[in-house]
């Protein structure tokens, strides 16, 4: 149904146009020369072409009145063709939206031979407003000089453009507002950046665009950064940045791969973290100092507890005994009894005095942090101690092996090292395993940055599960041995610890004992802090 009707319409229009054209074109010589049939054929094909074009086409007189419009134009506005002819575009313009004077001047220019483009707000028959782009060009229409106007609805396009512009504006605002430096680069070459990046690096934006971003990194870090770029990592990392003036600064870099104009580029943020680094350094330094102080306090506290323990047990005991014995003595009548009591009194007094001396000795050690140290050869000191114990060594026919090759010497107080060797060796010679020939080994070695002295034997050993808590306490012995007094390990532990070392023991009953001395366990932690302090 629709098709034939349409065809009829076309024919009708054709008829009218042809008629009009014929009338108008009559004076033209070309028309006269052409046969009527050819002309009609040409006009027909022209019309069909004119109307096939979807875009709106208007034929205008230089004064702006419509000569002809195509179907596209009618469709664009919703008016029939007849409605246009002879009128200017004023009726197609919403009130006040277009500058009609500008339109006229553009028409004039176009007519003079220079093609023009103008934006024009259109008003459809149904009241809808829309924006179109009109191209004006001089042309001829059946022999007449006219202006051909083509129009394109650009409302959507304009809207998109506007949105794009706004979004770009937003993006730029955001980028400029960022306190960090943001740059976008393609394989290192900077495509765009914000003011922040200029501020951080000291370059202008103009200088930065097209610049190789790796130049913003200190040379020694470039390889590292290149690896980060190539691996596409998105987590932040710290490097040294290089400013235009050659200054280096602590820099945190974080980048993300994003698609941009059909390829993947990297958006990189630079953060100058110098302040943070300085603050971190200070915190670390303070932390280290606090740790040292707290360690020191803890050790002091432990020592105080140890002292309380010693005073409580080792000193109060003999004093208590003395008091009791005196009580007995006062009420004693037998001479023989008094002699016995006096002997015990003497014994208790001696014990009290010995404990006092030991306490004093320990206190002396604690206060003697600055005791002079000498460069000592382990072998020399050991040989001396060995000779002191030679009788005992011969008696138990012990084999003694030493290996001080890897660390032959140490800076340490001679009397302390002597006391360490003496205690360890005499303990090993004392606590033997029945039927086993004693083999005692001493060796030194380096562990991390520490000097270790290790003494091991194949003696009776100690049940560590039971006695570990008592080993380094005063007057603790773990063997029913006549020579046990339980002073040695307690004393050398104090000596070693006072000089920043550490002593530990491993042992198994009926297997043997190994004592390890780490001479500078705490020395190692402290110099760093000391350095910082001197640097301030």
């Amino acid at each position, binding site marked *: 149904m629709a098709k034939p009707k349409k065809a009829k319409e076309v024919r009708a229009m054709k008829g009218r146009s042809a008629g009009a054209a014929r009338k108008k074109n009559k004076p033209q010589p070309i028309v006269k020369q052409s046969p009527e049939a050819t002309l009609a054929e040409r006009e027909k094909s022209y019309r069909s072409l004119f109307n096939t074009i979807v875009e709106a086409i208007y034929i205008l007189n230089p004064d702006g009145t419509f000569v002809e419009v195509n179907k596209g134009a009618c469709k664009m506005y919703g008016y029939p063709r007849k409605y246009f002819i002879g009128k200017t575009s004023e009726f197609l313009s919403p009130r006040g939206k277009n500058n009609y004077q500008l339109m006229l001047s553009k028409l004039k220019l176009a007519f003079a031979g220079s093609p023009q483009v103008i934006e024009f707000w259109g008003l459809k028959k149904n009241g809808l407003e829309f924006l179109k782009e009109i191209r004006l060009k001089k042309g001829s229409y059946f022999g007449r000089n006219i202006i051909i106007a083509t129009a394109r609805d650009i409302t959507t396009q304009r809207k998109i453009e506007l949105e794009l512009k706004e979004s770009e504006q937003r993006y730029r605002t955001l980028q400029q507002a960022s306190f960090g430096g943001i740059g976008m680069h393609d394989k290192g070459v900077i495509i765009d950046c914000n003011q922040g990046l200029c501020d951080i690096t000291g370059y202008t934006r103009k200088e930065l665009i097209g610049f190789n971003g790796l130049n913003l990194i200190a040379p020694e870090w470039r390889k590292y950064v290149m690896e980060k770029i190539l691996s596409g990592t998105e987590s932040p990392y710290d490097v040294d940045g290089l400013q235009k003036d050659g200054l280096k600064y602590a820099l945190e870099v974080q980048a993300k791969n994003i698609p941009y104009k059909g390829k993947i580029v990297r958006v990189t943020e630079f953060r100058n973290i110098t302040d943070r680094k300085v603050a971190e350094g200070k915190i670390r330094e303070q932390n280290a100092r606090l740790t040292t102080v707290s360690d020191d306090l803890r050790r002091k506290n432990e020592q105080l507890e140890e002292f*309380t*323990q010693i005073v*409580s*047990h*080792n000193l*109060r*005991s*003999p004093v*208590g*005994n003395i*008091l*009791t*014995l005196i009580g*007995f003595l006062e009420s004693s009548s037998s001479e023989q009894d008094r002699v016995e009591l006096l002997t*015990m009194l003497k*014994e*208790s007094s001696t014990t009290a005095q010995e404990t006092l001396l030991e306490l004093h000795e320990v206190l002396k050690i604690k206060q003697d942090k600055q005791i002079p140290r000498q460069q000592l050869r382990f072998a020399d000191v050991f040989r001396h101690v060995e000779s002191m114990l030679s009788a005992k060594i011969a008696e138990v026919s012990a084999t003694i092996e030493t290996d001080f090759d890897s660390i032959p010497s140490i800076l340490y107080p001679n009397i302390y090292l002597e006391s360490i060797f003496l205690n360890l060796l005499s303990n090993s010679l004392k606590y033997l395993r029945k039927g086993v020939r004693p083999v005692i080994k001493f060796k030194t070695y380096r562990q991390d940055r520490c000097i270790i002295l290790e003494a091991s034997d194949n003696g009776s050993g100690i049940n560590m599960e*039971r*006695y570990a808590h*008592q080993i380094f306490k005063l*007057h*603790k*012995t*773990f*063997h*029913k041995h006549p020579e*046990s007094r*339980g002073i040695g390990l307690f004393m050398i532990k104090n000596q070693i610890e006072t000089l920043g070392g550490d002593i530990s023991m491993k042992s198994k009953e009926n297997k043997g004992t190994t004592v390890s001395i780490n001479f500078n366990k705490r020395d190692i932690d402290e110099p760093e802090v000391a350095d910082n302090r001197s640097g301030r």
Partner: protein
Amino acid sequence: MSPRLPIIAVVDDDKVFQFTTLRSIQAVKLSDNVLQFGNGEDALKYLRQNANESELLPDFIFLDINMPLVDGWMFLEDYAALKATIVKEICIFMVSSSIDPRDISRAKSNPNVADYITKPVRIERLVELLQKLA
């Protein structure tokens, strides 16, 4: 016949304390059977060996803290495990020269310790303690 006197064990490495305690006990006739051990291990060994011999087991133990080998604390640990196998109810006093509050509270919080006595121990205190429990 007068009632049987309790058996008292003194576990202490201090020979002088052993001597003075024995003498005090004998002076006030608190016991006519005092067992003496120089360390916790010897005392435990004795308890284990005589777990079924009520006649030989002590009624009271005076236990020192600070001793070589098995000290007072370790004795208490082992005793806790041993207790069920022993036929006699034994009353343990911790006797130490320590006035360290940590030692005192640790001793008093042990269910097997009847009381904590600081050295030197006066005779009157001994009598009072044993009479209270008698």
